[in-house]
C-alpha cells in the first residue's frame, strides 16, 4: 500500500520544498519515499507539480490517474488541472487565490478563483475539501512565502498524510529551515484548523 500526494502550483510557489518536508518526515519514520519534481523551463511561471509517493512497494516516482490520496494546490486552477490524478474519495486542500498568467492580462481571458473552487465543491469524488483564503493567511502570518506551510499544515492537521502526523511535519520542518524561521513556520503550519 502506498500514500500518493500531488502538490501543484505555479513556478516559484514552493512546491518542491513542501514535497521535501513530507518526504523527510516519512523517511524519519523509516518509510520508503519517491517523488518526481518539475525542474527547468516550466519553473518560470509555468504549471509545476510534485508527485510524492510513500510506501514500500513504490517503483515509479510518478502517480497514475485516479491514484492520489490527496492534492495540495497552491493555485486553484492548478488544483483543478491535477484532478484526474485524484482517486475516488480523495482529499483536496487548495488556495483560493488565482495567479493569472501574463497571457490572461493581455487577452483579457481572466478567470476567477471562485470558478475553480465552486467547481471543486460540486464534485462528489472529493471526500474532503479545504479551501484556504491564502491571501488573508499570508497577511496574518506576515510572510508571502508562507503559503506552502499553511497548506501543508492544513493537510497534516487533518490527517491527510497517511501515517505521517502533524508533529512529524513540525519536526521535519525544524530540521530543514533556519532557526530564525522556525517560529514563523510553526504559526503557518498551525494556521488552518
Amino acid at each position: 500500500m502506498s500514500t500518493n500526494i500531488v502538490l501543484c502550483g505555479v513556478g516559484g510557489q514552493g512546491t518542491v520544498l513542501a514535497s521535501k518536508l513530507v518526504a523527510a518526515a516519512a523517511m524519519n519514520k523509516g518509510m520508503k519515499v519517491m517523488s518526481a519534481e518539475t525542474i527547468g523551463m516550466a519553473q518560470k511561471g509555468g504549471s509545476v507539480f510534485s508527485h510524492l509517493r510513500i510506501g514500500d512497494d513504490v517503483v515509479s516516482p510518478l502517480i497514475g490517474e485516479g491514484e492520489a490520496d490527496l492534492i495540495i494546490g497552491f493555485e486553484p486552477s492548478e488544483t483543478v488541472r491535477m484532478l484526474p490524478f485524484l482517486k475516488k474519495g480523495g482529499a483536496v486542500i487548495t488556495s483560493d487565490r488565482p495567479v493569472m498568467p501574463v497571457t490572461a492580462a493581455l487577452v483579457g481571458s481572466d478567470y476567477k478563483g471562485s470558478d475553480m473552487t465552486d467547481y471543486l465543491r460540486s464534485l462528489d469524488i472529493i471526500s474532503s475539501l479545504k479551501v484556504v483564503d491564502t491571501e488573508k493567511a499570508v497577511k496574518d502570518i506576515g510572510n508571502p512565502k508562507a503559503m506552502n506551510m499553511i497548506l501543508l499544515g492544513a493537510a497534516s492537521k487533518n490527517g491527510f498524510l497517511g501515517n505521517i502526523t502533524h508533529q512529524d511535519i513540525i519536526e521535519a520542518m525544524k530540521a530543514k529551515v533556519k532557526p530564525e524561521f522556525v517560529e514563523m513556520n510553526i504559526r503557518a503550519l498551525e494556521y488552518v484548523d
Partner: protein
Amino acid sequence: MAQEFLMGNEAIAKGAIAAGLNLVAGYPGTPSTEVLETVAKFRDDDVYVEWSVNEKAAMEVAAGAAYCGANVMVTMKQVGLNVASDPLMSLEYVGIKGAMVVMVADDPGPISSQTEQDTRTFAMFSKIPCFDPSSPQEAYDMIIEAFAFSRKHKTPVFFRPTTRICHAYSSVKVADEIFVNKPEGFIKDSKRWVIFPKLSNRNHALIEERNRKISDEFSSYERNKIIDGDLKLGIATHGISYANTVETLKSLKNKPSVLKISTPFPFPEKLAYEFLKDKKEVLCIEELDPVIERALISVCGKYGLKTVIRGKMTDDVKLSGENLRDDVKHQIYAFLGLKEDKSSKADNAPELPVRPPVLCAGCPHRASFYAVKKAMKGQKTLFAGDIGCYTLGNAMPLDMCDTCLCMGAGVNIAQGVGRIEPNTKCFAFVGDSTFFASAITGAVNAVYNGADMTLVILDNSTTAMTGHQPHPGTGKTMMGEITAKVDIKKVLEGIGISDIAVIDPLKLDDAVETVKEMASRKGVKAIIFSSPCAMIFRPQNVCKVDTDKCVDCRMCVKEIGCPGIVIKDGRVVIDSSLCNGCGLCSQICPADAIGSEVITR
C-alpha cells in the same frame, strides 16, 4: 549502508564519487546540471571539477585526464552530446587508460530541450557501451559498475538517465566507503595516443570484436534480466518505462514476462534470445527511439524466431513524448486485450489557463528586447534568438525571437538571412554564457566575411536558465577559486569589431537611442546590454501603481508582458511578491503613474 533522500542526479554524483572519481567536467543543461554541482558540493579536495566553456571542451579535458589513468566523468544534456561528438567519436577509436563515464541526460517530451534525440542510438553509432538506469537507486549502483566496466575495457561508456530519473527523488542506500583511484600518469606512446588512419583501421576491427564479447557479458549482467510471467506474451522495456510497467503489472492477475534492458548497446543478444524463444508476441515499451524493438527484430531474424515484435514501429507505443504511468497502462492493457475502467470524465470542468513560461519579473532581457523593438519599429528586421532564458523573448507581447536553432546559431543565421535579404536589419541576440560556449566563432565568421549585422550580447553575468552557474565571464570557478574574468568587450575588440556599445538596458531612453545609432551603421556592430540577473541581484525596491494617476490605458500590460503586472478587480496592480523593481514599467507609463517603494525582503 546509510540511507539518503536524493535526487537522481545527486545519486549519480554520489555514486561517481564512491567509484573513485578524480575529475569531472561538463556544461550545464537541464536535466543534467545537478550531477556536476553535487560533485562540487561533496567532493574530496583532490577531486577536480569544472564547468567547461562547452561540452566539447569538457570531453577533451576529461580525455586528457583519462589518458593519465584517472577516473573521469563528463556531464551534459543530450544536445550537448552533439557538441561533444567530434572528440568522442575519435576517442572511442583511441581508447583510454583510466575510466571514463559520459553522463548524458536525455529528455523525453521534450520538457526542456530542442530535440528528442536518443543517446542509446548515439551509443550504437559511436560503438560506445551504454548504461540506462531505471531509478535513482539503480543509477547510484549502476554508475559505480559503469566505472569498473570502463576501466576493464579501456573505453568510454555512456550513462544515460532520462529526466524522470534525473529529477526523481528517492530514498537511496549509499555506500559507507569510497574507492580511491591513484592515476598512474601520462606515459608517452604516440602509437597509442595519436590517431592516424592506420590506428583507426586496426582499432575499428578490435572494437567490433570487443563489442561482440561485451554483448555476451551484458547477457549475464544482473541488471539485464527476465522476470517470468504467466503468459506467452512478453514486454521488453527500460528506464522509467520499466518502473511504470512494474506499477501496471502489480494489479494484473495473469502477468506477461518482462525483459528489462539496462544496457541497450551492445545489446544483450543471448539474453534476448532466451526471452523471445517461447514468446508469441512481445511489446517493446520505450521512450524516444525504438532501440530495443529494432534489436529484438534483429535477434528474431538472426535466430529464425517467429515471435511478433510490437512497439513504436507497429504504432502500439506512441512515437514521441514521454511514457507516463497511464500511457504505459493503456499500452499494456491494449496489448493484453484487457478492458480499462473508464473513469467518468467531468464535462462541466471550467476552462483552465494556459501557462507558457515567461521571462521573470524584473528580468533585464525584457528591457533589452523592448529597447531594440522600440528602436527598430517600422523597419524590416530579423531578430535571431539563441538558447537560454532569452529564448522566452519570443512570447507575446515582446515577440522578439524570430529564429532559434541551437547553441550559438543565431549569430550565423543572422548573416545567412542578410546574404539573401541585404535590406533587412539583422540582429542576433546571445547570452553571455552561450557567447562563450559557441558564439565567438560566429562573430569571427561575421567579421571575416564582412557581414552587415548587429550582435546583441545579453550579459546578465550568469548562466541563468540552468540555475546560475559561473562561466568564463564571471571570474569564479567550480573549485571556488577567483580567476581572471574573460572580458566580452575585449574579446569582440580582439576579433576586430570596432563599433561596440556597452549599455544598461534598464535606462530605456539611452538604450533605444544607442540601438538606433548602432543599427544605422554598416558592418558588424555589437551592443552589450549589461545588467545582472534579477534572481541573484534583487534590488530593495518594488514598483507600485498610483491608482489616482493611472488612466487604465494598460500600456504596461500590452507592451512588456511582465508577470509582476496583474489585473485585479479591473485595475492594473503590481504584485509585490513578484516585482523586482526594475522600473521598466515606470519608464513606459504615459501617465507617470508607476513609482517605486523600498521594501525589506
